[in-house]
């Protein structure tokens, strides 16, 4: 019988460095705290980006494309309601996908990732191992994490170890 990890069957957990992402942190003004989520959801619909809750007054907005453009769009749409911080360089996006994606993440993340509790579209600020990260579920068996840039190589190595038994074979990445 062959199983993932013996090289004969395809990997059931895959890691990918997601390059070309524009990432902004949206800090809501005190008065706008309650409505900013709604505004972002609407904007996300219009512009095709994903808004991920990151705290009572903050959201990560992730899009593909130019960092500057996303920041400008948000700036314009949310002026007076929020401050926008471009984090396209501050955060590194890593994708984890496959049947064993959840099993891989369970090795570092304490959240219950059962689809009943953490659905596609859900996001959370939490820890992976010893590093604070932002987690989002982007599909039934697909997740994305945002990790502060300085930690990215370390986190990548940890993820690669966690996924090894599921047949994942990746090279170290260089991020600086």
């Amino acid at each position: 019988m062959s199983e993932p990890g013996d090289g004969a069957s395809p990997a059931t957990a895959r890691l990918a460095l997601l390059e070309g992402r524009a990432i902004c942190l949206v800090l809501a003004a005190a008065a706008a705290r309650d409505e900013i989520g709604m505004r972002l959801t609407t904007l996300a619909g219009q512009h095709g980006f994903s808004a991920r809750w990151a705290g009572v007054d903050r959201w990560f907005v992730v899009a593909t494309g130019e960092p500057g453009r996303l920041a400008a769009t948000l700036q314009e749409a949310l002026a007076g309601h929020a401050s926008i911080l471009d984090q396209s360089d501050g955060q590194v996006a890593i994708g984890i996908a496959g049947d064993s994606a959840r099993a891989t993440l369970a090795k570092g993340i304490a959240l219950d990732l059962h689809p009943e509790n953490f659905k596609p579209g859900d996001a959370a600020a939490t820890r992976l191992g010893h590093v604070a990260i932002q987690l989002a579920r982007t599909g039934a068996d697909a997740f994305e994490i945002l990790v502060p840039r300085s930690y990215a190589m370390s986190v990548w190595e940890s993820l690669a170890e966690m996924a090894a038994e599921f047949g994942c074979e990746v090279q170290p990445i260089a991020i600086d």
Partner: protein
Amino acid sequence: MASLIACPHCGIRPKEEFAIRGDAAPVRPAADVPASDDRWNAYVHLRGNPMGRHREFWHHAAGCRRWLIVERDTATHAVFAVIDAQDVALGRTAP
């Protein structure tokens, strides 16, 4: 305790995500009221330290970054309530 803490914003999270500051009871003397040195000393240094019900500041450092007040029992480690500290400070939630 407190292997798990139910953050009012993030849901149930392991203790490792939090940093603990301690007693939430002492209130910082207001600037505009002349506070005696005793009051300041009490605020900064003295603690009720009860065996039993206790309110403590916990910071959800690896989550929503909110300061929470965790009400718990220091003898049994039962957790009674976890609320946002700012809501308390602003009088939006009863302490």
